[in-house]
């Protein structure tokens, strides 16, 4: 499978999983299975992204500014390239009235909240993905045990049909399992990419600080 197609499929799978995770397991238990080689960082640290003014007050007020809220809504999504998002923020701050440091900090607070929420949802999605894989492994094993319990020399057509049915199920399940495993490296990269995006946008905002 081509890498672009893999990414697209991974995004689709994650989308489905993420949406269901919003409604379902909003808070996966700590220590839940984590299938990625990347170390699980459940939450991002504000201080590892930002060394400007204290963003705590801005975290409570950024939504009060319709202009800031609209800017965050436009530049936060991953479909907007970092360069494009950075240029838009620079333009916004160049034309903004009031204290530039305050406004830049409000934008950072908005981006941190939005991207952190999306990243957390992706992490929950990956955990659900991992749980589904575990369930599939169990299903394959159960089918294997059932098949092995059948008498290989049986002449009863019902037994033969059951054998064929179990082997077909195992073949399909194994194929689905392996396809999903192949996508795992791309899926596991998503939280890292989110963190990288947030850091790059925070750095662009920091350039605007006095």
């Amino acid at each position: 499978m081509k890498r672009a197609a893999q990414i697209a499929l991974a995004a689709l799978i994650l989308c489905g999983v993420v949406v269901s995770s919003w409604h379902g397991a909003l808070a996966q238990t700590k220590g839940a299975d984590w299938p990625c080689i990347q170390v699980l960082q459940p939450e991002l640290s504000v201080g590892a992204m930002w060394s400007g003014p204290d963003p705590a007050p801005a975290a409570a007020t950024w939504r009060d500014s319709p202009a800031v809220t609209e800017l965050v809504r436009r530049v936060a999504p991953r479909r907007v390239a970092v360069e494009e998002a950075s240029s838009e923020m620079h333009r916004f701050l160049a034309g903004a009235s009031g204290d530039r440091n305050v406004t830049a900090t409000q934008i950072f607070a908005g981006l941190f909240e939005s991207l952190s929420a999306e990243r957390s949802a992706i992490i929950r999605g990956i955990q659900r993905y991992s749980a589904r894989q575990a369930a599939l492994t169990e299903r394959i094993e159960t089918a294997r045990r059932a098949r092995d319990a059948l008498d290989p020399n049986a002449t009863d057509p019902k037994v033969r049909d059951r054998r064929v049915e179990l082997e077909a199920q195992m073949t399909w399940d194994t194929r689905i399992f392996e396809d999903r495993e192949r996508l795992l490296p791309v899926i596991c990269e998503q939280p890292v990419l989110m963190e990288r995006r947030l850091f790059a946008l925070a750095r662009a905002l920091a350039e605007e600080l006095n």
Partner: protein
Amino acid sequence: MNMIIRGVIVGVLSLTSASALSSTAYVSNEKSNTISVIDLDRLEVTHTIRVGARPRGITLSKDRKLLYICASDAGHIEVLDLDSLKVVRTLPSGPDPELFILSPDGRRLYVANEDNNMVTVLDVGRGVIESQIPVGVEPEGMGLSPDGKWLVNTSETTSMAHFIDTDTLKVAGSVLVDNRPRFAEFTPDGKQVWVSAEVGGTVSVIDAQTRKIVHKIGFEIPGVRKEAIQPVGVRITADGKTAFVALGPANRVAVVDTATYKVERYLLVGQRVWQLDFTPDQKLLVSTNGASNDISVIDVEKRKVIKSITVGELPWGVAIR
């Protein structure tokens, strides 16, 4: 005519003086298998050189004409000629060389072999392994006393700093430090060794004579979760007054007063800051930021990040001439 000649002479002289002052940084990119060459005057990458698989630790020869490279997955050391920018020699290293240090006379490389719990002693001139010293599990950090007499190796899993006598090539003593020690750096007077512990989140300051920990430096950054503070690379200024400590996924470099052990400042650099090095004049410090694929250039006196420069994937080691 005279004016033209004078102009040419002034131009040539100014170019000469600029190049005499300019520094060049070499950065190993662990994932892209390259070395980035960065002009620190222009603050831009000038060359990218393909080298052996998974380059990590790098160091300059004493005459600063060669760059030694730990090609970890290739299982050897490569020697890059810095004039031609070509790999001119390959040296044996033992398996999985991660980090190494050159003896003050430039004759030996002491190599940490992460996979087989050994420190390999390499005769650089002859290109042969002189000895292999058993140490703790997953050796990594390598510090050398200014007189070259004592080598300190840290072992990540054993959580120890091993003091190796470079005359006998035997471990003379070990000091237990905090979890996952990554780097060892002697103070310029040779009296102390600073050992960073990635998981422990501390730097242990060890008296080199008594081999006792005299102080443990902890780090607290507002808005950063404790477990994200993972000390790795350590560098101390030539006057011995200030230490810089790279704090991994905290994305910060701590500036520490060596007299009081107080952290004066936490500089925000790039993501997963790993190793550090000074320019020869000590005016600049460069950090490698593994996750944001860039380096940060820090003004040492002003304690300020002046620029971040994109390099290859997973920048790891840095050496500057």
